[in-house]
């Protein structure tokens, strides 16, 4: 089939149709849904058990050691933070550049942002030796006269993540209000009550729309620099240290690229899932799929490039220690994971470059998952090897994470999945009103003669009024 003629969306589609199609995703779930929920809860349970065990016995059970003070927790933390960037990319950046094909898919991407942040937030706590004292990181007035250390990148993290979580959650909510109103109008019982509260009595009056548009644009403008700053700050956890392989200038862009990369990959995953289960072929069309894939591919190449930059800088720079770390990544104990990361991160994306494989959704599903595996490995490869091969030869060591670490990492996916499952059943995962806008404007563009005719009628109407004498008659 030729896809060039293919449209992002069929603009002839009726608005009422849109409502019904989207709202059917809120109907009572099928069995498969409950199975999925059960699985997620089971995964989460593993993490909870592991965490309780660790809480009681100390971090020794995680097989952390000297010098491996950081392990999978921090790696996974970065992974989830990274995942969160895709939502911002789609809803904010593409909104500002008026790429309207984002409209059918940005909603769940944004939800993903919020939820992955909610997941990421757990890891710094889990990783703390005394998490019950976590609140000491918050600057609050006390007669003890002590404050957090604002120099520490970890405190920056705390600030950045709080800000990002707040902003993205608010952004998500604001964007949902009109749809929530629709839900309110079409629901009964507890859902009616819920939506009436959530939709804040939205009626779609021009006043509301006017402020809405402005607000939405402003928020988008805030979110873009915020998202960038968040991951640069996370990267500064490493770049600000003096450890070989961490003390790298190119880390901030490298992290941001990686973040967008993993985010897009997971958008593809969810895109395919939603499209399949809710039969939203009408809205999540192949054309849009194509676009995301291309976008992902582009970002993958950026990421690869930054990787090479980092290697080159280290290799040609005169820091033998950093060089050793680099070499240890290639030939050392981490080599298998490192090569896997390079393959998934830089080679596999070429599957997105070719139309044939791009259009094969099951295959794309697998690929997108593997890309995420690659990105997770990337984070581990940032944390691990440097700690293994730092300055003091005495402390060279290797860490294989214990079952506890694995369980908690595993469980975090369950937690994320659970949140997402609840989300798709409670609010429409596709923005109805924006799809309507999309359709509306597309139709205009699609048949110009209609628009011309309409324009003629307006001018007529106004010319009529040009005749004098009617006023006040």
């Amino acid at each position, binding site marked *: 089939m030729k896809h060039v003629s293919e449209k992002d969306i069929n603009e002839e589609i009726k*608005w*009422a149709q849109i*409502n019904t199609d989207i709202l059917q995703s809120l109907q009572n779930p099928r069995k498969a849904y409950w199975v999925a929920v059960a699985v997620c809860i089971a995964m989460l349970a593993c993490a909870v058990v592991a965490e309780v065990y660790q809480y009681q016995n100390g971090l020794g059970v995680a097989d952390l050691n000297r010098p491996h003070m950081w392990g999978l927790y921090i790696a996974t933390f970065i992974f989830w933070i990274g995942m969160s960037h895709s939502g911002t990319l789609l809803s904010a950046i593409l909104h500002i550049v008026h790429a309207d094909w984002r409209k059918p898919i940005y909603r769940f991407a944004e939800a993903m942002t919020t939820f992955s942040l909610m997941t990421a937030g757990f890891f710094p706590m889990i990783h703390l030796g005394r998490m019950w004292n976590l609140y000491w990181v918050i*600057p609050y007035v006390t007669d003890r*006269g*002590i*404050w957090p*250390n*604002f*120099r520490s990148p970890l405190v*920056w993290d705390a*600030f950045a993540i*709080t*800000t990002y979580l*707040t*902003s993205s959650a*608010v*952004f998500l909510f*604001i964007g949902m*209000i*009109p749809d929530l*109103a*629709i839900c309110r*109008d*079409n629901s009964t019982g507890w859902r009616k009550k819920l939506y009436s509260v959530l939709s*804040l*009595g939205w*009626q*779609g*009056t*021009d*006043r*509301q*729309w*006017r*402020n*809405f*548009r*402005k*607000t939405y644009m*402003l*928020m988008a403008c*805030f979110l873009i620099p*915020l998202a960038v*700053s968040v991951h640069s700050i996370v990267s500064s956890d490493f770049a600000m240290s003096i450890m070989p392989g961490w003390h790298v200038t190119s880390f901030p862009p490298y992290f941001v690229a990686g973040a967008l990369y993993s985010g897009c990959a997971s958008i593809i995953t969810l895109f395919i899932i939603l499209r399949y289960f809710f039969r939203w072929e009408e809205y999540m069309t192949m054309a849009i799929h194509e676009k995301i894939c291309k976008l992902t591919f582009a970002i993958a190449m950026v990421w690869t490039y930054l990787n090479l930059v980092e290697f080159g800088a280290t290799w040609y720079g005169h820091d033998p220690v950093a060089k050793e770390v680099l070499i240890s990544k290639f030939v050392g104990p981490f080599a298998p994971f490192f090569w896997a990361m390079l393959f998934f991160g830089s080679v596999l994306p070429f599957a997105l470059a070719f139309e044939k494989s791009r259009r094969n959704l099951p295959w794309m599903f697998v690929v997108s998952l593997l890309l995420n595996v690659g990105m997770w490995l990337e984070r581990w490869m940032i944390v691990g090897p440097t700690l293994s091969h730092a300055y003091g030869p005495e402390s060279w060591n290797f860490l294989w994470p214990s079952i506890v670490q694995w369980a908690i990492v595993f469980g975090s996916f369950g937690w994320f999945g659970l949140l997402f499952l609840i989300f798709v059943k409670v609010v429409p995962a596709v923005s109805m*009103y924006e799809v*309507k*806008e999309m359709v*509306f404007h597309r139709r205009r563009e699609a048949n110009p003669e209609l628009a011309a005719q*309409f324009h003629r*009628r*307006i001018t007529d*109407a*106004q010319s*009529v*009024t040009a005749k004098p004498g*009617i*006023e*006040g*008659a």
Partner: protein
Amino acid sequence: MSNKKYRILGLFSDFEEAFLAITDIKMNKVPGVSVDDVRLMSPIEHPEIEEILGERPAHVPKFTLAGACFGITFGFLFLASAQANFLVQPQGGKPVVPLPSNIVLTYEMLILFGVIFTVISFLILSGLIGGKKERLYSEKVGVDQIGVILELDENTYEPTKALFKQHKVLEIREEVIK
């Protein structure tokens, strides 16, 4: 009994007809009814109509600016004073109020307060919080129809309805205010 007042809501299925109706009102087809009284309800936002309706104010950006400024000043002052008052930290030849890290944090505060102010001002200005809602409302607006709301008196009541009908209004809901 000319003091009888009505509020009517005309629901148009077709955006263009609604548009023309408003245009007519603007052109004073119905004397005594000003386009400024027209209020719209629509499933999506219609910039074109707003052109016709004329510039109506949206003050959100001002609040955003305020929020951002507050974020910067409060953020930096808070950090700086906390550091200057943290009696243990500043030793060992390091600056008490280190600019680089404070810039980072101030930046975050800027955004945080910018966002918060924006959202709150939006909720208030758009009448979602505290604002009074339209009494006449139809679910149809949520689907695909455009509603035009007008307050009318004896004289303008009929002609307006006529105007609406002329523009193929689907349905007219009305209520009597006093």
